[in-house]
């Protein structure tokens, strides 16, 4: 993308004031987005994101600058300006760049840039039809198709020089149902680190049908009761609870500064034996997968919690310095505009032995959360909250009436201790995770599981 000699000069200019590490991240990304609304293709935009991020370390100082000026003078000027913030020891060394050829672990059959809009639109129309025909109460369907091809080049003063191509495709479906003055919506958004083959092979009957089914189901739902209940969380996107409740607390971003409840606790029992929690960026073609992270490190399978024992964290190069630990291939950034840091990829609770039927049958009076909305956590305290998109009452081991407006709140470290059933039906769901280094594609996953007590906030009262 940019000549190697220019990159070398930039890395050197970045160390001119005594920094001990410099890095260049070049991004050239092509995106396409098409929206369908009211049965019509209403919006279509394509574009190219292009820019360069330069990072300098000096001990525990971290300086970042980015620019879309790709001329040699512009880049060197940017590197020098950033270097002004460093007052280092002056021993930065540039190792000769060694081009590393990596074999991508996520194969892409059809690059979306080469697929004409008409084929993308055809899939959208079909999904629209399925969602609309699901029920006469479906009054509106919105669809968004999105693809991106992100080409990156990462080089650093340690001699790293590596390129990667990441391709993401996603179809998001939102159905709105209405009856009388009431309106409810349902959402499903499958995505993958894959090309157009993923979109073309999607089971639209399932995904579009589910978006509409959720909307229609919630139309007739009762108000959610308030109080403390056992909560059964279904598999796939249900994993968002542990993404919020403990995933963020295992990122070096908060562990390195001891602001996480999980800091300095490796080897301690933090969960029941039945809980094993993993972050794995190597799962083939999954939405949160990468071949290399945004520092050029190979992604890997990181076991975070094994049979209840805290085993490891997700660590990036910079926080590795503060923690005196190795980086784990977990450094990510939304784009060249973001200083990278440790983030999740595909994080999931490993499958256990219970069947979903057993879990439901053994619950006397609780809540069954079939589909989750998103959530949020305060990383300092571990207090989390998240919304349930589709929920039901469970009475005497049977799933009862649907309920709406359920929000779950609690404390991550405490909730983790209360997991009392882990099912055998692991599945992954695609989401976007927003944090310090931007908004990133991540998978959350789990089998069906049960937490013996969570505070459920609703409108109905106790």
């Amino acid at each position: 993308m940019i000549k190697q000699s220019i990159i070398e000069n930039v890395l050197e200019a970045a160390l001119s004031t005594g920094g001990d590490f410099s890095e260049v991240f070049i991004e050239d990304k092509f995106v396409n987005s098409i929206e369908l609304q009211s049965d019509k293709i209403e919006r279509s935009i394509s574009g190219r994101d292009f820019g360069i991020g330069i990072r300098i370390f000096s001990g525990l100082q971290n300086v970042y600058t980015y620019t879309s000026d790709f001329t040699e003078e512009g880049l060197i000027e940017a590197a020098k300006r950033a270097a002004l913030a460093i007052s280092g020891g002056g021993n930065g060394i540039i190792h000769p760049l060694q081009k590393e050829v990596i074999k991508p672990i996520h194969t892409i059959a059809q690059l979306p840039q080469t697929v004409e809009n008409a084929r993308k639109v055809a899939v959208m129309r079909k999904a629209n039809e399925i969602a609309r025909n699901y029920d006469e109460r479906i009054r509106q369907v919105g669809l968004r198709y999105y693809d991106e091809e992100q080409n990156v080049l990462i080089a650093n003063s340690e001699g790293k020089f590596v390129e990667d191509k990441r391709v993401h495709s996603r179809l998001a479906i939102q159905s709105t149902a209405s009856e009388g003055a009431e309106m409810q919506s349902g959402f499903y958004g499958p995505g993958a680190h894959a090309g157009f083959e993923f979109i073309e092979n999607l089971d639209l009957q399932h995904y579009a049908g589910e978006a509409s089914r959720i909307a229609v189901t919630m139309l007739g739902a009762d108000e959610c009761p308030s109080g403390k209940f056992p909560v059964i969380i279904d598999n796939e996107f249900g994993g968002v609870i542990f993404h919020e409740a403990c995933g963020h607390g295992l990122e070096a971003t908060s562990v390195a500064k001891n602001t996480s409840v999980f800091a300095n606790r490796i080897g301690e029992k933090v969960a029941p034996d039945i809980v094993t929690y993993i972050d794995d960026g190597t799962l083939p073609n999954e939405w949160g997968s990468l071949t290399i992270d945004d520092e050029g490190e190979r992604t890997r399978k990181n076991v975070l919690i094994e049979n209840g024992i805290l085993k490891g964290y997700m660590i990036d190069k910079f926080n590795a310095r503060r923690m005196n630990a190795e980086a784990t291939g977990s450094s990510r950034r939304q784009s060249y505009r973001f200083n990278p840091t440790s983030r999740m990829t595909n994080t999931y609770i490993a499958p256990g032995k219970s069947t979903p039927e057993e879990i439901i049958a053994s619950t006397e009076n609780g809540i069954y959360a079939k589909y989750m909305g998103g959530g949020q956590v305060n990383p300092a305290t571990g207090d989390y909250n998240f919304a349930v998109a589709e929920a039901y009452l469970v009475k005497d081991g049977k799933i009862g009436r649907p309920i709406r407006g359920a929000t779950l709140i609690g404390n991550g470290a405490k909730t983790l201790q209360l997991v009392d059933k882990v099912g055998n039906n692991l599945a992954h769901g695609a989401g976007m995770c927003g944090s310090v280094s931007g908004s990133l594609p991540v998978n959350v996953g789990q089998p069906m599981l049960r937490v013996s007590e969570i505070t459920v906030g609703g409108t109905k009262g106790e």
Partner: protein
Amino acid sequence: MDIQLFQEELLKKAQDVGFHEAEVYYEKSNSFQVKIFEGEIDSYETSEEGGVGFRGLYNGKMGYAYTEKIDDDSISFLIEGAKANADALDEDDGTDIFGGSEHYSEHSRYSDELANVSIPEKIAFIKEVEKKTLAYDPRIVSVNYCVLQDFSQDRVLTNNKGLSLQDKTNGLIVFIYAVAKDGEEMKTGGAVRLTRDFNSLDADEIANEAGKEAISSLGEKSIPSRKYPIIMRHDASASLLAAFTPIFSAEEAQKGQSLLKDKIGEEIGAKNFSLVDDPFHPEALLGRNFDGEGVATKKTIIISDGTLKTLLHNRKTAKKEGVDSTGHASKASYKSTLSVAPDNLYIAPGEESQEELMATIEEGVLITDLSGLHSGTSTISGDFSVAASGFYIKDGKIASPVKQMTIAGNFYDYMNGIVSVGSDLKFVPGGYGSPSVKVKELSVTVD
């Protein structure tokens, strides 16, 4: 490549290949951000970036494309992209490129003085804020987020109907979050400042606000879960308003995604509730003199004493209803297609102080922070159920902090349930403002 030449060339080539109308939108931004941790610079970021958004009418349909790489090849990339995108659209929806408004405000949102504040001055200031926050109370164990950022941005909109507009803006934001610990209990408290006047910032005042909020949240108590009268503090109220802003968009209404569809002229809120969008509000940092398609912006009263006066329009939504655009065509950046959004949307302030609002409450809850708004709110149904922090009010006064809560209700009921509106109007980042608001009741569930 010179941007002005690039724009001229792009518009000319576009016309040559069959775009009868075309527009180029260019943005250029600079930013600086420093994060402090334990007296040291933890991260330091600068940037210079920009990009070009192109849109044009091809066979009567509006195609879009953008690029951040500006060179000779980019012109054909934009033109080919916009053509393919125009072809994908279903029909001519009546949108076109705008020839210009009669009058544009010359309101300035740029401070030369702010632009001249040196980086060492800014760093010294934010270090001072961290130091003072840590010193506020021995129970403040850390400051987990301490950031100063500033930005400046130039926007240029040019089209082949003779319109050429530009404006520039700058501003500075300070965020600080303190962590307080007492035994096992851990609480956070924050302060945020938005300004174009660096000299108006007072490190003591910011540190005291964050420190006080964290410390006063210690000693949490549980209260029974039930419905309570609520005071939404100005910042919590502004963030709830921000989450429900799409319901005031004519675009959402036309799609059947807002229950305010066909409600113009009707009473949709309490008598003391007025909602205003003012691109020129002196205390708000955002705003602009022309909107995303070049229409002059103006102050808009959306709700006046409880009655819905208008929704927010761009030219496309306005045309569908035979009204004038309210100047709310929005483009988050050159990367976006046109949509509808407010500039500085706020609830008009009333007369009473926060203490006066509280004085008449026998038993209630003061909400100081909301969390999980992106997932716990449905703009379609109006339902919300979100995590909240706050204080228990007993006999008109704050009695104690409350354990983590959720509050739940429906935004349409909420607008009708406003009992009184405070005088303490404040803006939060993102261009939303509110005074503290007293609401009849909401469901409160305590952890």
